[in-house]
């Protein structure tokens, strides 16, 4: 067994894995109507390439990747585009976003699928295929994978490629089930990634509370040289920087990416979609999602993107009495949703219906007693109580001195705080305020530069005009004199030589311009 490099802090959390990981992944029923958001990834929103009334086939591109950091979106089933409009989507902001609404025809007619031999393709062609297949990180961040599969500009060679099967959040089991059932497919996708990145070693990190998944992956990796590394169950071992540290001992620099230390990391489910895209020609139109918590039959579903959460909950037996909160993702980092009338997206690994039984009771907040429990659990090795102190006092510069932006919002500090202080909430607030201030500053700086440029321009124009008049004035005067002209002409010339009243008073012109 190879050695592990434990990261600082972390927690043993409740697990709640067995509620949903005992049965195989079920195919979710085809919804009558799908709402497919055009922004299901980090980066630019996909450009819609269909309009209402269009007939679409299953797997047909309906949104085109727009720019380098973007990914395509596809019709999850065949049918008719009802409309392209703004709809509620599952996003922490709670804001609606542009969706393609498709009424399914129930026939599931596929677009023509073109499997390719990845070995025969140029890397850039292969990346293009993945981009056009809408492959993004399925661990939750949904970063376009094609970008991460391109080393150029970063370094000559990758040291380590890590496949993340840690799944450290309580309740979530979609990766667990996928590894048990589709280990071969995951490894096939891994081959494609290895082909593109040519890493020196390939490590697969899985928390040791998933012995079946570990066994399945070890079997599938036999003879490939890829190493499965069981890791102790300790939240947040599935967080990228923590997993990289755990498996390689390398610390991703502050404000840096794992690639800066020669490591690249993908989720196991992402590898599976790479396999489907390359070896089957299927774009990302579905994903495995855990539906669990206070529902009657928790489990995992292979569901089409755009399927309303409400229908998935229905297939998990419906809500039990007393559901208070609907969470997308896990209980540590997931966000609460207003409504279950939002569609499944690529980033949605779990739908957790939580009642008082699952949730932390709301408790009155006490003053911080500086006990340091938060310091002990912080995986970023921060001083959460100092960050809290400064965030609360709105001393944002001091919060940044204490490395606010190294906080990964894993939630460990909040869960161990005996004073029940919502620490992570304070850090989010401070980050947002700092971002807002920086935007303000940039805006002000831009306005200042423009104003400066305008003043300079006016001054230049004024001087040019004066110079011109000065050149012309003596000539004109001479001409007038030679023509025997009167005093009047000279006066006119002098008056003309005077600067324009507006030019002499920039403030007045500015007001007019405004």
């Amino acid at each position, binding site marked *: 067994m190879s050695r592990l490099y434990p990261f600082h802090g972390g927690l043993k959390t409740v697990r709640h894995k067995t509620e949903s990981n005992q049965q195989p992944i079920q195919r979710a029923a085809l919804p009558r109507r799908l709402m497919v958001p055009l922004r299901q990834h980090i980066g630019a929103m996909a450009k819609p390439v269909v309009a209402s009334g269009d007939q679409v086939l299953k797997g047909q591109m309906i949104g085109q990747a727009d720019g380098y950091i973007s990914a395509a979106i596809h019709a999850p089933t065949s049918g008719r585009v009802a409309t392209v409009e703004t709809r509620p989507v599952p996003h922490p902001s709670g804001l609606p976003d542009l969706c393609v609404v498709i009424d399914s025809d129930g026939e599931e007619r596929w677009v023509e699928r073109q499997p390719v031999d990845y070995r025969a393709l140029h890397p850039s062609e292969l990346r293009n295929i993945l981009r056009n297949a809408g492959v993004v990180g399925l661990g939750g961040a949904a970063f376009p994978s094609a970008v991460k599969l391109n080393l150029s500009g970063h370094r000559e060679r990758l040291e380590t490629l890590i496949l993340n099967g840690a799944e450290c959040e309580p309740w979530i089991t979609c990766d667990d089930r996928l590894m048990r059932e589709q280990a071969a497919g995951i490894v096939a996708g891994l081959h494609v990634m290895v082909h593109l990145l040519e890493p020196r070693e390939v490590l697969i990190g899985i928390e040791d509370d998933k012995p079946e998944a570990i066994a399945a992956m070890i079997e599938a990796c036999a003879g490939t040289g890829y190493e499965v590394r069981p890791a102790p169950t300790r939240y947040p071992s599935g967080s990228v920087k923590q997993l990289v540290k755990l498996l390689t001992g390398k610390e991703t620099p502050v404000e840096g990416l794992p690639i800066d230390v020669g490591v690249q990391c993908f989720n196991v489910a992402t590898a599976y979609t790479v396999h489907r895209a390359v070896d089957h020609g299927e774009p990302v139109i579905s994903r495995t999602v855990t539906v669990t918590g206070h529902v009657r039959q928790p489990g995992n579903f292979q569901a089409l993107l755009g399927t309303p959460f409400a229908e998935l909950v229905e297939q998990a037996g419906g809500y039990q009495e007393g559901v208070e909160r609907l969470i997308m993702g896990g209980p540590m980092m997931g966000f*609460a949703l207003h409504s279950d009338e939002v569609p499944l997206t690529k980033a949605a690994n779990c739908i957790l219906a939580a009642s008082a039984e699952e949730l932390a009771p709301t408790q009155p907040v006490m003053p911080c*007693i500086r006990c340091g429990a938060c310091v002990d659990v912080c995986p970023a090795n921060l001083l959460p109580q100092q960050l809290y102190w400064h965030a609360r006092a709105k001393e944002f510069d001091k919060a940044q001195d204490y490395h606010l932006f190294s906080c990964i*919002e894993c939630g460990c500090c909040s869960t161990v705080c005996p004073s029940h202080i919502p620490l992570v909430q304070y850090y989010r607030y401070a980050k947002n305020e700092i971002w807002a201030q920086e935007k303000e500053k940039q805006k002000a700086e831009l306005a200042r530069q423009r104003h400066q440029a305008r003043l300079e321009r006016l001054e230049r124009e004024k001087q040019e005009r004066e110079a011109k008049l000065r050149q012309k004035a003596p000539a004109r005067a001479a001409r007038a004199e030679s023509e025997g002209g009167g005093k009047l002409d000279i006066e006119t010339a002098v008056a003309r030589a005077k600067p324009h009243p507006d030019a002499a008073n920039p403030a007045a012109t500015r007001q007019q311009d405004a």
Partner: protein
Amino acid sequence: MRFKIVTSPHIAQNVSVGQVMRRVLYAMVPGIAALTWFFGWGILINLVIATVVALLAETVMLAVRGKPLALHLSDFSAVVTAGLLAVALPPLAPWWLTTLGILFAIVVAKHLYGGLGYNPFNPAMVGYVVLLTSFPREMSAWLIPHGLDQPHALTLLETLQAIFHSELPARFTLDALTGATPLDALRTQIGLGLTVTEIRNSPVFGMVAGQGWEWATLSFLAGGLWLVQTRTADWRIPAGMLSGLAVIATVFYLIDPQHYAPPWFHLWSGAAIFGAFFIATDPVTASATPHGRLIYGVGIGVLVYIIRGFGGYPDGVAFSVLLMNIAAPTIDLYTQPRVFGARRG
């Protein structure tokens, strides 16, 4: 369906300030029991007086400051302050002495200095120091431990009489009941030119430190280790304090063993163990960084030795803790841990 919006994390461990404070109280039980055994009812009566006064003062101050009463009274922090101060007082301390100390601790050192979480000094130690400097005679009148010269003599009723009316039964005089503490004896007699060996032959001393005292220390150590084991107290503070004290005591002991008491005597005497696990570990007033807590502890240990050996008082835990309390913010500033991914060195 519509749902409530609450930000993550959505789960929490079952911990609270009240739980932390209650654990400190539980951990004091063995030590209090041992003290009661050796010094009689006075210990318990002091505890009761201190707790009642502390809760009353806390209630009034919370009300004045407009804080929710039930929430803050149930955090047990006032009771902890009462407990820490009460066990540090002489067993026959008059009731007004205890009351005054607690009032100063709760009203001034806790609430006027900012309230729970904001007070820069350990309230119990502020109260103790106020008493020690204002009423040195009352504060040094420690009873002779039971089993030394006499079986423990005062009944509950007689103890109450002594505490509330300053009346001793006719068969005792105060001088017969009280005596110097081991640290006090050591100090005075070294001052008189005796050697440590000679002094340690006196019946005040037991196997390691003072007769009776050493058992109370052992009991506090047991409770303190439990606090560390349950992570209620950070191990770094007692480890730092005791090693700081041990190292400096060893150095002086090696220089002149006849003039300086051995390190084990220092570790086991006075409030060293109690202070290391129960006083210095008060998180509000201690350093908050991992390295800082070690330094903070070492600082207290060294100061304790300096005050014991060269200062005007037989023991120095209270002064040392207060001195390091005020150094804690500076220590924190210079001992920030290396953030994940930051360059080493």
